[in-house]
């Protein structure tokens, strides 16, 4: 039975929806624009998180980045491209995929990064807690989705009250 593995909703033969709308597409221009926009996204992310996502190195800024070892995460989440398989359409190893793919696979096996927000007060005594919620010692945890959510909410809140 061929239908079983095949597509349940194939494109009907001679479908009128198959058409190009605005003439020929220039692949070269597509690629250039894609690279430029992707570089812009990377730059934005770099400034937002003071982290270079291409080389995976922390930079100076509001966030303190530190390596976290032995999280015990399944390999699936750590080694990009480990699935391989036919769905991997031979992506270019360029900046456009840099947000997803790291520089080298070995780095990812048992190294992950965690970031904490450094308080803005300039005179931060050495060894003091990194944030208001911690009870001594260095804050060391994996960021979770809710962290991003709160910071996002705060940003929106600020914007709406000029």
């Amino acid at each position, binding site marked *: 039975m061929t239908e079983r593995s095949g597509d349940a909703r194939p494109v009907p033969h001679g*479908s009128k929806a198959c058409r190009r709308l605005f003439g020929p597409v220039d692949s070269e221009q597509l690629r250039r624009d894609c690279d430029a926009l992707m570089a812009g996204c990377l730059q934005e992310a770099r400034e937002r998180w003071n982290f270079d996502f291409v080389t995976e190195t922390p930079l100076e800024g509001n966030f303190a980045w530190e390596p976290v070892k032995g999280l015990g995460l399944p390999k699936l989440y750590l080694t990009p491209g480990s699935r391989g398989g036919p769905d991997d359409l031979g992506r270019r190893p360029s900046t456009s995929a840099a947000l997803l793919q790291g520089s080298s696979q070995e780095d990812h096996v048992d190294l992950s990064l965690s970031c904490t927000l450094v308080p803005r007060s300039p005179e931060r005594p050495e060894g003091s807690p990194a944030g208001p919620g911690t009870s001594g010692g260095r804050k060391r945890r994996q960021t979770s989705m809710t962290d991003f959510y709160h910071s996002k909410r705060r940003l929106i809140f600020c914007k709406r009250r000029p």
Partner: protein
Amino acid sequence: MELLCCEVDPVRRAVPDRNLLDDRVLQNLLTIEERYLPQCSYFKCVQKDIQPYMRRMVATWMLEVCEEQKCEEEVFPLAMNYLDRFLAGVPTPKTHLQLLGAVCMFLASKLKETIPLTAEKLCIYTDNSIKPQELLEWELVVLGKLKWNLAAVTPHDFIEHILRKLPQQREKLSLIRKHAQTFIALCATDFKFAMYPPSMIATGSVGAAICGLQQDEEVSSLTCDALTELLAKITNTDVDCLKACQEQIEAVLLNSLQQVRQEQRDGSKTEDELDQATTPTDVRDIDL
């Protein structure tokens, strides 16, 4: 021996959860919906190459693809939301517009469907003017520009909330729902509605659906004015704004009906070609 039955719908649906239809959810939707609106009227301030009629062209094509692929109803309006939000921030040449439309359908379908559209299929629909690899690369670009905020609120999210608060006979509900969904798709093809809150489009669409059906048969015990007032109360919308929105929806419907009739008068076209007019087929069933 053949034991496999291929006629079973492969998509299994969960039963509606009443907990997701209470006021708490409705209030949350109303609170967050404006976060996902495009930030500006981009034909004036961002785009140089793209004209409003081009958005209509790409929207019409996207709707045809979604209908032919029997996508879930939300996929098309959600994809249009992605497209508008991207265009509100990134100046784009018109030659990229169809690729962008394909990427937006790709993302919306992945978010909303059990069996999503594939990259290869979408490329076929562009008459192979783009390659799957390009689609995947641009997927990352669009995700980056949308800041990965894909779970946008669409008018569909409000439909059940609205319908359950109307004094309707149950047997009419599915017809009203179907017409309202058609109006929502119609609104998504027209840029006029791109910056309206989804709740207003949803209430306007339900209002237009009931008022339109009312002319043929009794579907509601309320008069149109009383209905509009009730609808406005449900989604905290200003009554006059809602009236204006509903009138605009009716005008867009009328316009697209005239377009269809014009095409019919042109005569040279076959029934088949008429089927791909800008509106879903059942819009034409509404008698005005």
